[in-house]
């Protein structure tokens, strides 16, 4: 370990550290401009030069490794003079007239670079007296989120490296040379064509604001932006990566979002994606509900609420089209996207002839069936009707959809209310349409339901990344970037996906299979591995059961046979199998592409079989990662918002468990039902017997399969209460709509995809009378007869910790900072980065192999319905669009519904980019605009499910997985015509 002296202080450095690293570790400041933590060092700005004894010239601290015995002076006369020289030269091309008057005293620096100018007393020359013109460059004109003012660029190239090395995109570079050098965007200035994802990493690293975010500048004064009233640490409300974000607040509004320091230990390591950084303005949308809404027709007589409105079909009618009606209707065509166009011609927010938000936002007349009411009225009516239905029709005539968007505390309160006060286990949330099949398969094999490892281990220690049915760069972009970095550095990448997603395009091996043929593929991979003897016999022998059954089951699935089923060449399957098995550390990732099938549980099981047979679990670098969708889908399940378990997956049918919960909640044990409840997909069936529903923050009228039926079902209910931010497509059918709080308006904890519990703090107050979901649920629970006295969310966490063994050591204090990865069984337990190094949580500690057989997807294409339709997400939108379509920047990028069609199919059908097409499945039909794209294979179409006006789920097949009751959302057969 070399030691050195910096400014008279003796320091020791580790091998390979630079002078700058050592100085920073000791808190000694050396100015830097081109250097940025974690970015490759280029050493081009020369502001960090320091004097080193015995060296004739000054040395760049950022680019010089420490040598033993070095004596460094950071503020020597020579170094300081040199720095001033560097700054003077840079300032010669920089508009800094505002810094001219008075130097240190009068000037007010606006950014990192200007702070150095002031600190080193550099007085810039007046702009008009200079010979050199200010710089220019590609400026992203009209961009809704990110623009450039290249006159302030100092060519440090941080942005170029951030885009290339952190995000692994490479939109930016330095073009031209000498005094003409400038930052360029792609080949023609169009960020879209250069693959920009609008992540804003370039915004974050730029030291001068040459690359800046547009939205705050359009809405707030520079002073407000520079000096927010407070900055609050929160958790991004979108995906399961669980990025920590800092909300800047002024005047009770979130004015901008930044990401935490890149060197802090956060799941996002300082990055965010476009949604996290720019999708924060939906809570300020004019559609926000600020007072409870009560359907007109409810009146109070003699102390009771009575329905006086129309009966029958008119009962829940309103001046809107059904989703079906809207789907079938022709709509304004989509403005052609950036493809082949210059940025100037892009149809962005400012350029559209109609405000996008008028098309997607809540139409004014949707409010007409409602009147505004007080909280007292709304909650009284809700409590009265729920208790009435319970008395008249039994406990199980009530059901709730809890929310993977709400905190652990809120989900716990919800399930506590339904179980403790109403005596039913009909509690579920959107996990049913997400990873329920993974949970079923993992429970069956190893009695657990969460990821075994951590996201960061992929970058640190994984040799082969196997990704199945996960479009990570769009659905979990920050994790996607980490995967790309891992791939660039060392790891091989194998992607199994019917679509040529970005990761598939980069992969060493892309297994482009026919949708739904996964079991055949993974069985064939295992078949080949066994033939070559590449399986991990030791692992199989010591840590598993029933391997022989699987060995038999995969026998018929030779790579040649699988090639016929999957459409992947047999050799590619062999190569993938060998790569997977040889590892040495292979991580296995999967998401909706595997789970959303009617045989999803079997598909995941066959992947788990492959994983166990190769022993690819339980080591740092060999992780099992089902990538979670919603930011709290893991937590909502962990705290028991699913129909068959309490917290920590303790079964509802277990008497002892029941007794413990009854005691904690202060209810008699037999008030809690031992019967498993109904799942989301079962509730919405006529035979479910459910007559009253409470929905918190979910929008099943868009997200359920075969919506036309679901929408009808909701209209037939006796009572429906919806708690949400907006009058959603579901809420419009409600009797009572309770305005909740957005992510920025409340404190609570969330669990990300790697079991990390993090706390998100309240930044602003809710608008009007909107209330935190915590307060709403507390009030209602009390009204339903279960006395509940939590003061704040933290109190709820204390109770959760009491009844949840693997969270027993969790307290809010311990969650500050990076949070804790559960299991955290005791107050001094540090959390668990990866699981199963020794055994599995089964009775004998072993994993069980389960033999599965391949079955065709339920619907295969035929002459009448020749295309296979696949559904999924887009980068800029989130699920049913309730939030993102009201976030101005995101919506400007992806304003209208589209369907992706392969160019070959498009030319056969005579369809051009932007043309309207009609998609028809055996269930329904809808009209959407074509986007011609090679990402889909010929014969397949891809429909994002975010759009009310062209809802993918009108067409999807509601057949259910027998174990998890997951619907076949990923495959159905459709016909396409020009509309």
């Amino acid at each position, binding site marked *: 370990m070399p030691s050195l002296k910096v400014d008279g202080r003796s320091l020791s450095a580790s091998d390979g550290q630079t002078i700058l690293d050592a100085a920073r570790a000791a808190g000694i400041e050396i100015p830097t401009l081109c250097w940025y933590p974690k970015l490759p060092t280029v050493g081009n700005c020369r502001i960090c030069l320091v004097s080193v004894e015995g060296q004739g010239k000054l040395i760049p601290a950022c680019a010089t490794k420490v040598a033993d015995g070095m004596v460094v002076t950071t503020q020597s006369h020579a170094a300081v003079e040199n720095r001033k020289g560097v700054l003077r030269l840079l300032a010669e091309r920089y508009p800094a007239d505002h810094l001219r008057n008075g130097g240190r005293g009068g000037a007010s620096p606006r950014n990192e670079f200007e702070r150095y100018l002031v600190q080193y007393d550099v007085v810039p020359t007046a702009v008009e007296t200079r010979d050199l013109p200010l710089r220019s460059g590609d400026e992203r004109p009209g961009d809704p989120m990110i623009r450039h003012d290249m006159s302030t660029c100092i060519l440090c190239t941080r942005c170029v490296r951030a885009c290339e090395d952190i995000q692994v995109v490479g939109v930016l*570079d330095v073009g031209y040379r000498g005094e003409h050098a400038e930052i*360029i965007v792609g080949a023609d200035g169009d960020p879209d*064509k*250069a693959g920009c994802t609008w992540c804003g990493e370039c915004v974050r690293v730029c030291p001068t604001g040459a690359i800046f975010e547009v939205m705050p500048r359009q809405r707030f004064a520079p002073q407000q932006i520079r000096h927010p009233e407070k900055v609050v640490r929160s958790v991004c409300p979108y995906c399961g990566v669980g990025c920590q974000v800092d909300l800047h607040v002024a005047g009770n509004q979130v004015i901008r979002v930044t990401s935490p320091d890149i060197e802090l230990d956060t799941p996002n390591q300082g990055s965010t994606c476009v949604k996290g950084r720019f999708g924060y303005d939906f809570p300020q949308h004019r559609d926000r509900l600020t007072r409870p809404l009560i359907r007109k027709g409810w009146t109070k007589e003699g102390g009771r609420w009575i329905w006086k409105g129309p009966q029958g079909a008119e009962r829940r009618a309103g001046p809107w089209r059904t989703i079906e009606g809207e789907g079938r209707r022709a709509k304004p065509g989509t403005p052609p996207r950036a493809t082949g166009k210059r940025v100037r011609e892009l149809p962005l927010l400012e350029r559209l002839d109609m405000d996008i938000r008028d098309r997607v936002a809540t139409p004014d007349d949707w409010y007409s069936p409602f009147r505004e009411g007080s909280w007292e009225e709304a909650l009284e009516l809700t409590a009265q009707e729920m208790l009435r239905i319970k008395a008249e029709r039994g406990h199980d005539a009530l059901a709730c959809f809890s929310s993977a968007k709400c905190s652990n505390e809120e989900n716990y309160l919800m399930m506590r209310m339904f179980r403790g006060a109403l005596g039913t286990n009909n509690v579920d949330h959107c996990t049913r349409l997400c990873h329920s099949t993974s949970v079923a398969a993992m429970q069956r094999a190893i009695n657990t339901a969460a990821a075994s490892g951590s996201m960061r281990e992929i970058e640190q220690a994984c040799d082969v990344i196997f990704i199945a049915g996960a479009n990570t760069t769009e659905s979990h972009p920050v994790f996607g970037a980490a995967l790309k970095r891992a791939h660039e550095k060392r790891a091989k990448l194998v992607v199994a996906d019917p679509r040529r997603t970005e990761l598939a395009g980069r992969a060493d091996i892309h297994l482009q299979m026919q949708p739904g043929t996964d079991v055949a593929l993974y069985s064939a991979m295992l078949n080949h591995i066994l033939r070559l003897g590449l399986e991990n016999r030791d692992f199989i022998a010591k840590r598993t059961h029933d391997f022989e059954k699987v060995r038999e089951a995969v026998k018929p699935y030779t790579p040649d046979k699988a090639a016929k089923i999957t459409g992947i060449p047999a050799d590619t399957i062999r190569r993938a199998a060998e790569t997977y098995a040889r590892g040495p550390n292979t991580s296995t990732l999967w998401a909706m592409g595997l789970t959303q099938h009617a045989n999803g549980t079997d598909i995941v099981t066959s992947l788990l079989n492959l994983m166990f047979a190769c022993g690819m679990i339980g080591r740092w670098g060999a992780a099992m990662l089902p990538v979670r969708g919603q930011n709290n889908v893991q937590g909502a399940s962990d705290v028991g918002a699913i129909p068959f378990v309490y917290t920590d997956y303790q079964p509802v049918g277990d008497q002892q468990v029941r007794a413990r919960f009854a005691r904690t909640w202060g209810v008699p044990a037999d008030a809690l039902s031992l019967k498993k409840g109904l799942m989301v997909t079962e509730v919405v069936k006529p035979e479910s017997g459910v007559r009253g529903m409470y929905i918190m923050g979910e929008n099943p009228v868009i997200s359920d399969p075969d919506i036309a039926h679901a929408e009808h079902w909701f209209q037939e209910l006796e009572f429906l209460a919806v708690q949400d931010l907006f009058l959603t497509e579901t809420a419009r059918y409600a009797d009572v709509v309770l305005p909740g709080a957005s992510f920025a308006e409340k404190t609570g904890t969330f669990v990300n995809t790697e079991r990390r519990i993090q706390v998100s703090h309240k930044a602003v107050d809710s608008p009007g009378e909107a209330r935190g979901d915590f307060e709403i649920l507390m009030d209602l629970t009390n009204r339903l007869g279960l006395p509940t006295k939590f003061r704040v969310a933290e109190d709820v966490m204390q109770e959760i910790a009491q009844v949840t063994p693997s969270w027993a050591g969790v307290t809010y204090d311990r969650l500050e900072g990076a949070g804790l990865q559960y299991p955290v069984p005791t107050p001094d337990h540090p959390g668990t980065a990866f699981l199963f190094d020794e055994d599995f949580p089964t009775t004998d500690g072993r994993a069980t192999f389960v033999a599965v057989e391949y079955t065709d997807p339920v619907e295969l294409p035929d002459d009448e319905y020749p295309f296979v339709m696949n559904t999924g997400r887009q980068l800029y939108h989130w699920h049913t669009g309730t939030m993102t379509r009201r976030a101005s920047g995101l919506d400007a990028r992806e304003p209208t519904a589209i369907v992706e069609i392969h160019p070959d199919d498009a030319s056969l059908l005579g369809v051009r980019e932007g043309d309207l097409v009609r998609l028809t499945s055996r269930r329904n039909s809808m009209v959407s605009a074509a986007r011609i794209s090679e990402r889909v294979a010929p014969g397949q179409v891809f429909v994002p499910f975010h759009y009310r006006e062209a809802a993918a789920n009108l067409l999807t097949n509601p057949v259910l997985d027998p174990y998890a009751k997951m619907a076949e959302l990923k495959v159905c057969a459709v016909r396409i015509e020009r509309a």
Partner: protein
Amino acid sequence: MTQSVSHGEDYQPVFDGKIMDELQTVLQRYPTKQAALLPTLWIAQREHGWISDRIMAEVAEVLGLTPAYVKGVVTFYTMYHQHPVGKNFVQVCTTSPCNICGAEAVMKALLEQTGAQDAGATSADGKWTIVEVECLGACGFATPVLVNDDFLESVTPEKVPEIVKKYR
């Protein structure tokens, strides 16, 4: 990396058929894609005459580089044309030694007799673009002139008509 979207425009790719085969042989000579960029751009320029934004994007796609990287390289060098040039691209050294020996007059004669009029502009018939360049390394044979790939030495205004005739 560019997402491979279809371009929805009438763009005729440069690297197709025979040219693609040629590229494959060229690629084998280089250890990395970055290293192969310069020769790839040469081929593109040879085939298309100049390198448009769109061709930079195509080169990026076939080599698996980013469009910005390709543009950075194209714009760094002076010998890749970013605008259409005439069939004959003529480079005249006008650096000091050649200048003293009469390079200006050679330049003037070329401009007049080809109809290109201004340095860097292209003649109306599309045949000629004449540019001034720095030292061509033939100071002893002033004035050197490069017509496409042909190196002509000791050019004087008197020799210009012959040159114009030969390459017309």
